[in-house]
């Protein structure tokens, strides 16, 4: 019985009509769409069922029956991350998670011109410290989850991309392997922090796991989305050095009053050149992303293309990146077989410019002109050896500072990197056995880089090793994965079981070659050339299992076990067993709290687990006695012939896993209908059998250091996360969030070093200036990377007295000549790290910011300790060099590398980004919705640190590519 049905479809949120809603009779192609006001009219049979659907909203089905007017209220689909979190080999309802797991969804990502995934979560999660290495386009970043658990082995977390664990090793020519993944394609990043959550990844889980999930297609329709932005970057601050006139005065003063040879005056020029100003620029960058997503031929899919041009503030530096991503999730046999297919591709052209120009710009004599009319050096002023008669075109002084602009002009350092990561996952419901699924995941990750690093023959620094003038290199990394697991779920009464058991196999292979040569002669052949190559591989084979048991939906128990085999260890030490267990109690479900309205969520979590570490950087066969052939240039002469040499490499036949035991206790809470939510975690992580490279007894192996298992360390800390929805109504919303991280790292034993001797341990933390100069010391009872310096003595006016230090040993004499007078001091890791975010919206406008407060991170100012010295003013070989003006704060003449004057508390607050946005919909005949936004990234930094930037990866500040302040205009359009 045909009848006409009319009605309005409105938005549950604002009550407004929704245009374009698909109104279709179930099982047919009969249908219509709503008009501009959300009205529709449709002729249907009374027995029909109408489906109302619209992108982003939860569809509704309504049986017509005798109704003639059907008004429908659609609400936004809330398949959001607060409900489900991905974990290793599966996912879990957030309320059922037993481990310390934090998910950051798209809405919470940092805003701005972000080209690499790790920047999305900077400051967003307690326990996660992300430090970009510099402001260079595409620069790498250091990610630390709950401090480092290793010394020599890697401290990087495991990255799992759509179920595919990625290889941690880098690729020359690609500063940041993560930049392969376009942030625009990422739906969420989930951080697994404690062992009960990570142990399913066994040997790679000691430093946490980051699971990146990319965006998927949707069940219905076809949609197009565009995201684009244009940004402008500028250097915020230059290093304060002497200008030309000041420099001339300074040199004169040093000659007149401090015994500097008056020959230095003859080397002065008459210009005033601001070298830093000359090497930097205001950079303009663009980013475009188009994605198509929907459902075609019953296959939900998403395809996207992104194109990023990120230009650096250092002239010529930049990346040009194209990314592509396809995801399809078809189902077969009535959903019995689900397939998840991912392929991501990336093509990137890097121009690294020449970052040597940064240091040169601090140092190059400001009284010299950029060009001086020479012909040898293409006109760029260069320091010519005193022994040369022609002081314009003669041979250069090799050790002199080289012209910063020649640095930029005469070095061409570029690379092209291609990478494809693909995996296909089959999830099959086993017939006849209810609730049993089989999952097979096959993956292949291929990356290749080709680089050139060429120096023009006119460059004044190219004389030293002409075969280094033309350099080509290529690298190839491959990572192949096979994972298979079975999953069984069963509910009976108050009991619920979810069990998984599986097998994993992964193969990593890396190879590369370098071809260095002199510039080709006219006949096409270089007169010196050198080719080197390397190749290595390793395997991981694993068996793993997990059981989740839930009782009364209140008491949750998780147990996992992983047995990992690594090809890095001998048969006897190859396998490591990594168990974990966790218990969670949903207290708010208990009768005594169920009716307490103020408490909307309260969950207690306890976790324990053991994880491992086998990733010893650059060491793939540490237990095998290996001979290494010497390469060209390292031959030895017998008679008239040059022989390649064969060297036995050091090895430790007994090397084995590192083991980290983690204890974690946490509470998740939500009050006042989740207006206030948050969590608190406290943990202890103990690592034993630390893999480190330590000095060994002379005469016992084929080196003086050996990579072996030596000791143990501990990380203790706590994390607090709080979110507060201050205002939440249909017009206005304001949410603030804060997270606090505190971690303390301590080396508890370096087993083959006597611990009663407070000198035991080893130096690390190499600095610029001199060679072999270290400023850190690893020793028992202190955190890794503790600074180890002399205590500076000051005069009555508070000026440091050059070379005078606290005589700790009370032995007198030359205090600075005795390392025993050094003190163990602070370390570069912040004691507290606080992330703060605010999101405010009013009608169509939104305003948000995110910032970080880092407390008691210490930085050794190596720029000053190496440069702010009067002795650097003039070098005997005949060149002058500029100094940072901070030399006036010390008046040091000679290097005082180990003065704690240079160790500074670099606590800071950085406003990472501020964004103002305006959202619109229904423009252009109501077809297009979107948002425009303006963002300032790296808006400001508040700090007492005297250097350019207090955020220094590793704590030794030298020559860093400055992080620019960036202004961005962004547009998002949805069709």
């Amino acid at each position, binding site marked *: 019985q045909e009848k006409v049905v009319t009605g309005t479809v409105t938005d549950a949120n604002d009550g407004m009509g929704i245009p374009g809603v698909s109104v279709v009779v179930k099982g047919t192609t009969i249908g219509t769409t709503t008009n501009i006001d959300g009205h529709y009219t449709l002729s249907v049979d009374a027995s029909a069922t109408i489906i109302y659907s619209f992108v982003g909203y939860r569809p509704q089905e309504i049986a017509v029956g005798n109704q003639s007017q059907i008004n429908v209220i659609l609400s936004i689909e809330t398949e959001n991350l607060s409900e489900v979190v991905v974990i290793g080999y599966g996912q879990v309802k957030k309320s059922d998670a037993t481990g310390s797991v934090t998910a950051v969804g798209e809405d919470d990502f940092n805003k701005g011109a972000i080209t690499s995934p790790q920047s999305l979560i900077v400051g967003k999660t307690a326990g996660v410290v992300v430090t970009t290495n510099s402001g260079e386009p595409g620069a790498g970043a250091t990610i630390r989850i709950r401090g480092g658990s290793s010394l020599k082995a890697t401290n990087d977390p495991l990255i799992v991309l759509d179920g595919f664990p990625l290889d941690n090793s880098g690729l020359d020519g690609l500063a940041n392997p993560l930049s392969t993944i376009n942030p625009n394609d990422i739906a969420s990043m989930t951080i697994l922090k404690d062992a009960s959550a990570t142990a399913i990844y066994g040997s790679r889980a000691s430093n946490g796991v980051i699971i990146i999930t990319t965006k998927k297609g949707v069940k219905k329709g076809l949609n197009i989305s565009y995201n684009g932005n244009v940004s402008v970057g500028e250097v915020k601050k230059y290093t304060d050095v002497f200008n030309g006139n000041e420099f001339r005065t300074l040199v004169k003063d040093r000659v007149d009053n401090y015994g500097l040879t008056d020959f230095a005056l003859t080397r002065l020029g008459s210009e005033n050149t601001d070298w830093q100003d000359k090497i930097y620029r205001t950079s303009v960058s663009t980013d475009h992303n188009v994605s198509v997503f929907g459902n075609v031929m019953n296959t939900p899919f998403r395809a996207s293309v992104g194109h990023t041009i990120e230009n650096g503030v250092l002239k010529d530096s930049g990346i040009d990146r194209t990314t592509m991503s396809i995801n399809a999730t078809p189902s077969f046999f009535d959903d019995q077989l689900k397939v998840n297919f991912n392929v991501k591709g990336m093509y990137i052209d890097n121009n690294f410019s020449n970052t040597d120009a940064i240091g040169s710009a601090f140092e190059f004599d400001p009284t010299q002109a950029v060009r001086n009319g020479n012909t040898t050096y293409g006109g760029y002023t260069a320091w010519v050896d005193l022994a040369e008669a022609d002081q314009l075109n003669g041979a250069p002084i090799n050790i002199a500072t080289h012209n910063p602009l020649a640095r930029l002009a005469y070095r061409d350092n570029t690379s092209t990197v291609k990478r494809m990561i693909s995996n296909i996952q089959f999830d099959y419901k086993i017939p006849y056995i209810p609730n049993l699924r089989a999952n097979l995941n096959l993956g292949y990750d291929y990356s290749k880089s080709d680089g050139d690093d060429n120096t023009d023959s006119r460059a004044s620094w190219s004389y030293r090793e002409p075969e280094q003038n033309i350099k080509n290199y290529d690298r190839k990394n491959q990572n192949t994965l096979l994972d298979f697991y079975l999953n069984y779920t069963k509910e009976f009464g108050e009991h619920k079981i979810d069990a998984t058991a599986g097998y994993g196999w992964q193969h990593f292979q890396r190879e590369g070659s370098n071809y260095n040569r002199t510039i080709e002669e006219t006949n096409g052949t270089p007169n010196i050339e050198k080719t080197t190559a390397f190749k290595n591989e390793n395997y991981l084979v694993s068996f793993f299992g997990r059981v989740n048991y839930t009782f009364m939906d209140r008491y949750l128990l998780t147990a996992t076990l992983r047995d990992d085999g690594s090809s890095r260890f001998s048969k006897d030490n190859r396998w490591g067993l990594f168990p974990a267990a966790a218990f969670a109690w949903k207290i708010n479900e208990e009768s005594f709290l169920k009716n307490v309205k103020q408490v909307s969520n309260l969950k207690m979590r306890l976790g324990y687990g053991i994880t491992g570490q086998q990733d010893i950087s650059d060491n793939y066969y540490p237990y095998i006695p290996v001979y290494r052939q010497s390469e060209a240039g390292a031959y030895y002469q017998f008679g008239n012939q040059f022989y390649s040499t*064969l060297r036995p490499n050091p090895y430790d036949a007994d090397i084995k896993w590192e083991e980290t035991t983690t204890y974690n206790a946490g509470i998740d809470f939500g009050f006042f209908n989740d207006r206030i939510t948050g969590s608190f975690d406290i943990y202890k992580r103990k690592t034993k059998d630390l893999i480190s490279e330590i000095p060994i007894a002379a005469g016992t192996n084929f080196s003086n250091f050996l990579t072996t298992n030596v000791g143990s360390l501990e990380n203790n800390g706590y994390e607090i996360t709080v979110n507060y929805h201050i205002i939440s109504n249909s017009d206005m919303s304001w949410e603030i969030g804060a997270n606090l991280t505190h971690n303390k790292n301590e080396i508890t034993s370096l087993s083959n070093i006597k611990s009663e001797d407070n000198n035991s341990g080893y130096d690390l933390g190499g600095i610029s200036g001199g060679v072999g100069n270290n400023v850190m010391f690893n020793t028992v009872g202190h955190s890794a990377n503790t600074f180890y310096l002399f205590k500076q003595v000051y005069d009555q006016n508070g000026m440091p007295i050059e070379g005078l230090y606290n005589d700790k040993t009370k032995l007198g004499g030359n205090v600075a000549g005795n390392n025993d007078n050094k003190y163990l001091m602070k370390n570069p890791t912040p004691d507290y790290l606080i992330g703060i975010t605010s999101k405010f919206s009013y009608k169509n406008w939104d305003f948000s910011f995110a910032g970080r407060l880092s407390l008691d991170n210490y930085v050794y100012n190596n720029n000053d300790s190496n440069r702010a010295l009067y002795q650097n003013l003039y070098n*005997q*070989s005949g060149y002058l060099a500029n100094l940072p003006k901070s030399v006036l704060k010390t008046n040091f003449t000679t290097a005082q590398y180990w003065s704690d004057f240079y160790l500074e508390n670099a606590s800071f607050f950085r406003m990472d980004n501020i964004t103002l946005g305006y959202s619109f919909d229904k423009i252009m005949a109501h077809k297009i919705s979107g948002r425009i936004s303006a963002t300032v990234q790296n808006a400001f930094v508040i700090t007492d640190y005297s250097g350019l930037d207090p955020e220094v990866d590793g704590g030794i500040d030298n020559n860093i590519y400055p992080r620019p302040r960036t202004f961005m205009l962004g547009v998002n359009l949805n069709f």
Partner: protein
Amino acid sequence: CTNDLEVQPIDPNEATATNVFKDEASYKEALAKIYATYAISGQVGGGGGAPDIQGIDENFGNYLRQYWGLQELPTDEAIMAWDDATIKNFHWQTWAPNDVFIAALYSRIFYTVTTANEFIRTTNAAIANASGTFKTELENYQAEARFLRAFSYWHAIDMFGNVPFVTEDDLPGAFSPERISRADLFTYVEKELIDLSTKLAEPKTNEYGRVDRVSAWMLLAKLYQNSTVYTGVDRNTDALTYLNKVINEGGYTFDPNYKRMFSADNDTSPEIIFPITFDGLNTQQYGGMTFVLHASNGGGMPLNGIDGGWGGIRTIKELVSKFNITESDFSAAAPEFVGADTRGMFYFNPDNWQWEVTNVGTFTNGIGVTKFKNLKADGSEAPNAHPAFVSTDFPVFRLSDAYLMYAESVVRGGAGGDVATAVGYVNQIRERAYGDNSGDITAGDLTLDFLLNERARELYWECHRRTDLIRFGKFTGGDYLWTWKGNNQTGSASESYRDLYPIPSNDLLANPNLIQNDGY
């Protein structure tokens, strides 16, 4: 598949110990490595990676570079301007047990010993299965490896005294080597060398760069001559026994051209008994001779075939005055003044140099040394010339040293030599230096003081000075002061325990069998 976990290196440059020696030529390459430990820092040329030892910059961790530094810097022959770690402490004689450079040389000595031990083990097995000329070759290789181990152990005796002791019987692994006393190690090395003095190749029959038995004789003579210092027993008679063999049976002849022995074509010199070889293209290294030539250049000195100086090492007036040269001999027009004794090759430009070293850190305080050159003796371009890496070989043992040792052992009362022959040898050296007999001496001039000075004049910067000064009792203490000795510009006395370097603290911690040397 769990069998995948059984991996073997797939790098074309690597092979496992079990399959590397399938090729007979591999043995020679493994022997070349032991020689190369003195010259090169690792398996990639130019200090480009894969270093042999860790804990120090690869280029600094070069054997010859550190050996040179520890033998020359604490003496009146050289002073260093740089700021690298504790490098200035050497000239000041203020080094400490945790000194990174001392540790580097110590590690280097034992690296060579351990590598030689491995080779001796490997060839032991191979010799048992070999026959014919290959067997003879292997035996020669093994003898050379044993010589090089003895040579490095001699460095240990000379510099560190009581050290860990390992032989081919100690397999690599985690153990604590036994400590051996200086005297016992002396006895061990002596025994090895006596055995090798008939096992090594006949004089002058080996390839250039490889030692023959003359090197064993020479090293025995060195041990015996310093025996009073090493063991408290005077062995000058034994020294003369082997010096006579070196001089009369060795086949190495006096080079009429002094300069050639320090030039890039010194492989053609008939006088050099044992060289450490370098080559601009094939043996590239920022340590070794590349270091000696570059670090000693700067301040307008002639480049002599290198690309530029690093402005580090120069000498002080005490050495220059031994050639009767004074500041006023130099002028801006003639900064490379050469006196009657042509062995004194110095550079001083009064325009930008200063005779007195008021600032240790200023290279141009002091006097430049131009003895070593990366040019052929005739001034033409070096063979396989490269601007950064030199082709000049380092003369470890040369005949003139044997002549002067002969004279010294005679003066010290050793039997088996005579003063007339000694004076003849000395005058042969001096006539080469002066170009005529104007510098000749008489028997009356042949005193210990004269010989110590003559050794400086003939052998300066050749890694003999510290050992010589100790043997003459002038290294530490206040008998002989020179600029900045004892961290004092005019020189001050230093503690006598510094005649030995300390056992590096790292090894004391790693090996409980060791005991620190007295005083440290």
